[in-house]
């Protein structure tokens, strides 16, 4: 299956590319807005700050390209900060509008456990992205911010309270964890995305 991986300078694209290939993707890695607008299956990675990632999407017009692809019914998967970019807004370093493809807001974890969360955490999930994944399977997270109780939530984990570990709205998916670092469970999620139709 053909997959277009957005070649963001604010993401570890090489690791995700490797994992997607292992999951069976025929990969095109690009930052060309026109190519992304025409793509049928897109992966939006991201690490670092929300505002840096969103600014880059706007400057390159990839934000518009993603919206265009989504309107043509393309499949989209956001990973980590890429997942956060799908939401209406993030409150990391001030308030920044996201792509607005799923409803909800991204906020900092507050609570007694150390932030950022670094490590494996159990995820309770449903839906096509998690087919074949047992309940409470651990995935690898590295994040200081997350959405809580999002409308499109399909997976939930607990860290300083319950948070949204994955969302799905139609063909738009987002995962807060790093599937490319979550061993066999992560590769299964990527394969599910690569194959879903």
């Amino acid at each position: 299956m053909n997959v277009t991986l957005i070649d963001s300078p604010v993401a570890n694209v090489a690791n995700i590319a490797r994992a997607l290939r292992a999951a069976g993707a025929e990969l095109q890695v690009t930052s060309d807005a026109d190519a992304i607008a025409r793509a049928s299956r897109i992966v939006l990675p991201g690490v670092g700050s929300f505002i840096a990632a969103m600014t880059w999407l706007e400057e390159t017009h990839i934000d518009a390209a993603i919206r265009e692809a989504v309107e043509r019914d393309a499949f989209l998967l956001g990973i980590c900060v890429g997942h956060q970019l799908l939401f209406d807004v993030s409150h990391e370093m001030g308030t920044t509008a996201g792509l607005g493809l799923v409803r909800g807001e991204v906020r900092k974890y507050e609570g007694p456990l150390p932030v950022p969360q670094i490590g494996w955490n159990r995820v309770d999930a449903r839906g096509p992205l998690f087919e074949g994944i047992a309940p409470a399977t651990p995935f690898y997270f590295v994040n200081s911010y997350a959405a809580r109780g999002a409308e499109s939530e399909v997976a939930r984990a607990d860290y300083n309270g319950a948070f949204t570990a994955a969302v799905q709205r139609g063909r738009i998916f987002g995962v807060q964890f790093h599937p490319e670092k979550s061993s066999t469970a992560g590769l299964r999620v990527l394969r599910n995305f690569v194959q879903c139709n």
Partner: protein
Amino acid sequence: MQLIPSLDLLNGRVVRLTHGEFASARVYGEPEAVLDALDVPRGARLHVVDLEASRSGRPIETDIVRRLSRRDLIVQVGGGIRSIDDAQRWLDCGAERLVVGTVAASAPALLASLVETFGAGRIVPAVDIRDGVVRIDGWERASSTSMREVFTRIESLGVPEVLVTDISKDGALRGPSFALYRELRAMTRLKIIASGGVSTASDVVSLSRLGNVSACVIGRALLEKRIRLSEITVSNSIPERIIPCLDVRGGRVVKGVSFTNIRDAGDPVECAMRYEAEGADELVILDIDRGTDRDTIRRVADAIFIPLIVGGGIRTLDDFRAMLRAGADRVAINTAALLRPELIRECAEEFGVQAVVLSCDAKDGLATIRSGSEVTHADAVEWCRRAEALGAGEILLTSVDRDGTNRGFDIELLRSVTSAVKIGVIASGGAGRVEDFRDAIESGGARAVLAASLFHDRVLTVGDVKRHLQTEGIPVR
């Protein structure tokens, strides 16, 4: 898991004894003022011990208990309850529950009649233990009754809980007596209220994982503000990580004892793949040549789908960036950070807090540099605390003395660091048996445990360690 703050009273004031010695009493102040400072939530249980009563055998601090009982708290009182009349006096003061120690061991008939008179729900038998022997009379005498007999007797009374204090741990802030509570798990079905030594949030999590501990009493650690009740959450199901380490030199895996006597142990890519297949949660590659062998990092990163920490010879932001580009998820820095601590802040700002691992090689409590060969003047605990403030996301703490010895982790060193910082600590140096991994997490408060030679030499597999942790109630992936 209920948290029960504890106030020990002597001469109208809150005090703490160390090892139960009256001569060692340290005064904290008036009970109400002390209580106000603890932020005890409404409706919580409060444990009050009348120390003089426990020694003299009659209720003394009745006025204080009357005043504390008027607050929205469930007050349980202990000390000197040796008759139905004593018990009635405390209940008349407003106490909800009575903690009875000495009679539980020495006067079973009285304990039975207390339960019969006031109900099993209002009596909390207490057993004080030192070195496997039950103590009575304010800890001053050894009981002639064995531990097993005392617990069997208490269980037959139908009370739901028993309060167990390990006197050797009490007030010492060295952690609770996990071994004792584990022993009791096999001895009795009673739920245990653990008392003595609880000094970190991690202690509470570890106690809750034992399965037979329903509550814990926290005294000195609260009074000295080492922990706050609001900081304790019992999120005890987040998996703990097992991390094999590859010490690499010239593109080969090597392993030495205390950083010397290096010997060859194989190909890093093969080792890394084997570890992932065994269930490793993360990998560490330390380049002990102090060079940055990017090619090896790239080859390993290409072969695995778990996170990779790389360390060794990272001097500058550019070195750090090069490792991330080669495929590392996180980078450990040691020598360069000790020589110029600002490097931690710079890396955290450039690459994010999560990418920065402070590697601290401790020897006799001091941080060392250049692979443990040079001791600095920096206190290891203080250095870790400072590194956290500068932006380190996690600490890789290695005991240089234990490294490669298989003698177990340095639990004291671990506790001193894990109780000083909020970020996670990876325990390293000394793993030899599966129990060592348990102790590093349970007693040491580590959020991850690292081993090198043990896994290389296939003395244990990652799977062996995880199976053991699981049977001990410690969650793993």
